[in-house]
């Protein structure tokens, strides 16, 4: 990343996009494509679907950048939430159609981004990985099933053969612990 670009914050980029600044969107894309595409690919398990949704996501960013309010959260959160939401929607519509195409695509996604360009993120990834490792297994599992498989609490309960109340507790506890563990490192989480 060029030094002068790094000086423009994500907040400023989003504001610029809201004003119709196309290069600003391009820059935002360059900064976030790897994170967002990785997330989409993990959820959808298909390169084709993930690329489709990535386009939708950035179109949505273009359309609704004015919705972003920096008082309420970070650009990273806004973008990731938007991306995940669209991915879950797509996943659920796919699930009602054809499961086989989704399952077979795992091999395509081994390509990993250039670590040098991702250095800015790898610290954060390490922190998250560490935090998750510290969660009890059943709590971590509940969070992962919800986040990456798009399952609801009832669906998770059915999947695990556990009572709904238990799943609710695990999910709540897992989120509280994750929050605690990440709160200590909140400065390095500022994107």
């Amino acid at each position, binding site marked *: 990343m060029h030094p002068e670009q790094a000086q423009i914050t994500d907040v400023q980029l989003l504001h610029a996009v809201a004003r*119709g600044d196309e290069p600003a969107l391009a820059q935002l894309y360059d900064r976030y494509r790897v994170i967002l595409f990785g997330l989409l690919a993990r959820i959808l398990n298909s390169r084709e679907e993930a690329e489709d949704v990535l386009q939708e996501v950035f179109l949505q960013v*273009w359309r609704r950048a*004015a919705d972003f309010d920096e008082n309420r959260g970070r650009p990273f959160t806004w973008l990731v939430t938007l991306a995940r939401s669209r991915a879950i929607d797509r996943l659920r519509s796919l699930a009602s159609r054809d499961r086989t195409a989704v399952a077979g695509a795992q091999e395509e996604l081994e390509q990993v981004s250039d670590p040098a360009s991702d250095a800015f993120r790898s610290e954060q990834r390490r922190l998250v990985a560490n935090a998750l490792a510290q969660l009890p297994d059943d709590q971590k599992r509940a969070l992962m099933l*919800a986040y*990456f498989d798009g399952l609801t609490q009832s669906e998770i309960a059915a999947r695990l053969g556990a009572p709904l109340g238990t799943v609710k507790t695990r999910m709540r506890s897992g989120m509280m612990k994750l929050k605690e563990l990440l709160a200590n490192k909140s400065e390095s989480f500022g994107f």
Partner: protein
Amino acid sequence: MGHEDYKEMLSAHALAALDREAELALNQHLSDCADCREELDRWNETAAALALAADPVEPSPQLREQILRRIKTEAQDARPDEISTSGSRVVSSQVIPFRRPTKTVWLPIGSLGAIAATLVFAALLVSLIMLWQQNRTAKIEVAELRNQVQSAQDELARQRKVLELLATPGVKMLELSGTNMAPGANAKLAYDKTGHAMLMAKGLPLAPAGKAYQLWYIVGDKPMPGKVFKTDGAGNGMLQDQMPAVALNSANFAITMEPEGGTQSPTGAIYLHSGS
């Protein structure tokens, strides 16, 4: 559900993991509770960190261009009621952050398709019946019109003949008046030097079946037969005839009702006559 119950649902909501009814209930609560909205924002930050648990992956290089091309034709949404006075920052209000509040409901495609197909078929059937009825009506109307046109054409032809005759130099015209048999009847007779004659009668009663009106040329006291004619429903009749030469200078004419084949001598009552 109490406020505490809602608070406990917030972290699951940040994961979009609430079941449908719970989600709806919470969204309802969130629209009224700023505290919970703020807390939800914080939970969203935590949930977003999980995105980093996914491995980074590069999308295809051409995607960048595709996206940049597509945004050129896309409009951006402004939310007019939320533009702050400073103009550069937009503050979004209590909208649940960036998530669709309800899950998509999918009907089985089969039932939707069947319903739609039935409706379409029913609509087509109705249209078809209506068209058929309209067609029948139209056919009747066309037949009616054709009759009217024919009558009009006939009438025109007659009138043209009359005009032609009347335009001939040396044409004579006289009137026949109705008898007791037809007090309101009236006729005009026009004929030229060659004996080419035309009779136009009005106000004659409709002749019964098998009967017709006959024109007589009265020469001396001897009636000579002319042609027969029938009237239309309005009592009007027209006749073209060739007068016998001997009658050209006679002045009397009469119309009687005779058998429709005509007779050599008058047998029926007189309806119209010239003279007194």
